[in-house]
């Protein structure tokens, strides 16, 4: 059975200026895969190209080690000198390759450990290889297993827990206050890029409505159009705050806009309904004192960063447990892969045994149908058939064993002993006479 291998580079070994040299566009992947499997000794291949990695997962044809060729191939395909990227390229074979694929799928090899994107990208790459006809039984099994391992890692560890970017942190904090964001309204104060991103993220996570307000109505209109929101005049700020569940503020104001005096009125008007204020402006738009009001939960940019860092630290802690799962699964997969090498032999052995048995049993049945036999004759017939089958099956191995050279003989004998659970007695000087593998003689002949 051919070996699984990985050749590529990732954020661990290459900076973006090197990674971009080897990056493949989506439409370039299928031709590259076909070239890999036709021009190189590669039986199966998959190519994944993301912003953080470019890797080829493949299965080498028997007796070959195409890793070096694949390095050349990648450089040639992207029209770069191999020497320019060689330092960033790595390759893994066999169990290391399996482990690497499992780690990538489980997001243990990602820039942000636990991020979910890589699994989707790997599935897409697998889909492309399938369509291109370059994923065979080994790669398919490896990838399917990798997806299973990734699922296990995400379920059994906290590796994917907690948001790892500012927009997701805003959603996570909102979930702590409101749970489901369905029906919640978001007010964006100011027209900053960050706040629009966070608002969009909240909207994508179920928030019902986004309203934008800004001192400059034109900027509010422009942002509202960009994120499919309503633009409202700045003069309505107090009313808008009373109606909003989540406020994201990022104006360029030098003085706080969301003041204690304003929130004293607002919280009362809202009947202390919960409200989350995310202030991502520097200098801050919200006076810290508004966070003391019942029902108001205020977070500034440092708070969001703190949550992000805490989540990343938590994920890294979970990575140890996840690595153990990957190790265990890689071991099991390796075992499966090894057993695949002997499967054709097992199948041929079974076929041969079945064939011998079928021929002899067929002959015996024919004799039985020709003449009625006594019980003793039937017993004798069965014994003869069994003896014949055994003789025929043992003929070949016995002949080979006897004809073995002094070097090979003991090894072959030991293998046979292990395979059949034999305990050969030392010192036996009796000659073992192999009965001839003759055709079954009729009971009548035996009687005679």
């Amino acid at each position, binding site marked *: 059975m051919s070996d699984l291998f990985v050749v590529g580079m990732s954020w661990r070994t290459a900076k973006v200026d090197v990674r971009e040299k080897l990056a493949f566009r989506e439409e370039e992947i299928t031709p590259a895969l076909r070239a890999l499997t036709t021009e190189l000794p590669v039986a199966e291949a998959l190519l994944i190209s993301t912003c953080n990695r470019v890797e080829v997962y493949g299965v080498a044809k028997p007796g070959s080690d195409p890793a070096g060729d694949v390095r050349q191939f990648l450089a040639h395909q992207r029209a770069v000198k191999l020497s320019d990227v060689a330092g960033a390229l790595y390759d893994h074979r066999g169990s290391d390759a399996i482990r690497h694929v499992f780690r990538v799928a489980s997001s243990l090899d990602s820039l942000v450990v636990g991020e979910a994107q890589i699994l989707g990208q790997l599935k897409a790459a697998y889909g492309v290889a399938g369509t291109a006809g370059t994923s065979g039984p080994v790669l398919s099994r490896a990838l399917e297993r990798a997806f299973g391992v990734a699922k296990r890692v995400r379920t059994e560890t*906290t590796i994917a827990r907690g948001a790892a970017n500012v927009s997701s942190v805003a959603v996570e904090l909102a979930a*702590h*206050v409101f749970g489901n964001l369905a029906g919640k309204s978001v007010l964006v104060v100011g027209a900053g890029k960050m706040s629009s991103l966070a608002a969009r993220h909240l909207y994508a996570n179920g928030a019902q409505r986004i309203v934008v307000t800004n001192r400059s109505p034109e900027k509010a209109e422009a942002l509202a159009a960009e994120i499919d929101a309503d633009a409202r005049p700045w003069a309505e700020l107090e009313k808008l705050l009373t109606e909003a569940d989540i406020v994201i503020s990022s104006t360029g104001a030098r003085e706080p806009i969301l003041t204690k005096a304003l929130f004293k009125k607002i919280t009362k008007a*809202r009947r202390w309904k919960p409200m989350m204020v995310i202030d991502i402006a520097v200098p801050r738009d919200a006076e810290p004192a508004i966070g003391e009001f019942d029902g108001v939960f205020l977070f500034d940019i440092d708070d969001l960063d703190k949550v992000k860092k*805490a989540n990343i630290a938590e994920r890294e802690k979970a990575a140890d447990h996840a690595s153990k799962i990957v190790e265990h699964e890689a071991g099991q997969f390796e075992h499966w892969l090894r057993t695949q090498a002997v499967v054709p032999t097992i199948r041929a052995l079974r076929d041969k045994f079945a064939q011998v048995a079928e021929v002899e049993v067929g002959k015996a049945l024919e004799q039985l149908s020709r003449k009625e036999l006594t019980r003793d004759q039937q017993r004798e017939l069965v014994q003869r058939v069994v003896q014949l089958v055994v003789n025929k099956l043992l003929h070949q191995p016995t002949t080979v064993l006897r004809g073995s050279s002094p070097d090979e003989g003991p090894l072959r004998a030991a293998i046979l002993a292990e395979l059949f659970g034999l305990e050969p007695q030392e010192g036996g000087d009796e000659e073992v006479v192999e009965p001839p593998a003759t055709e079954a003689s009729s009971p009548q002949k035996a009687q005679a």
Partner: protein
Amino acid sequence: MTEAGRLLSVAPSPAFWVAVVAYAAAAAALLGVLAGNAKLRPFALALVGVAFAAHGTDIGWRGTMHVHPAESVREAIGFLAFIITGGYLLASARYRLTLGGVVVMPVSLVLLVLARLTPAGTKPEDLSTLGRIHISLATLGVGVFALASALSAIYLVEDRALRRKKFDALAFKDRGAPLESLDKLSHRLVWVGFPIFTVALVLGAVWTSRLGENLARIEYVLAAVTWCAFAALLIARQIYGWRGKRAAKLTLEGFAAALAVLVIYLIRRIVE
């Protein structure tokens, strides 16, 4: 000891010991979940289920010995713990309440042990049907208030963690029920418990006056305080929109008064 007193001192059933072990194990498992071992969650909830079933079996077994939950305050406390655990299980089906479980399981365990292993006292000679209904409704009402209080306590812990930006605190990391849901659920439970407790209070007053007892006893005053606290809570929410921290604190204060009534009853029963 009188005949009635002998009946009340029925020894705990084997199911009681199963419940005790299951409560303790459930508390430990939930603590493990809180510490980050997410795999323990189904196991922990299964243990809560076992504790609940064993607790119910113990109550049923005592029923066959003619010792019912409404027989005395001591029995009522055991039943109260059963209601609290059942309510927790129900709420857990919808929300992640690990932190709540870490609090509720030991509380249920302590109440159960108090109800079974403290001296039984004697069965009151004058325990009429009215008295039994009073005890049953009061237990049910306080049980519902206990659940509301547990949710309020979780609310306050989570609110504190969020306000103080303790993002590495267990209350934050557990990703339990959201604050808005805790507040709403607690309020709904107070709505359910309040009429039950009101009827229990009226029946208790009628029963007590029939017995000719003095209504100025401390437990009666505390029961009235409990009622007033929950009434004030409902009115303040309805008229002024009180919710969140203020509502949670008032819920806990009301429940503390209810708990004090039970403790006084229990001590009095033991002493007498």
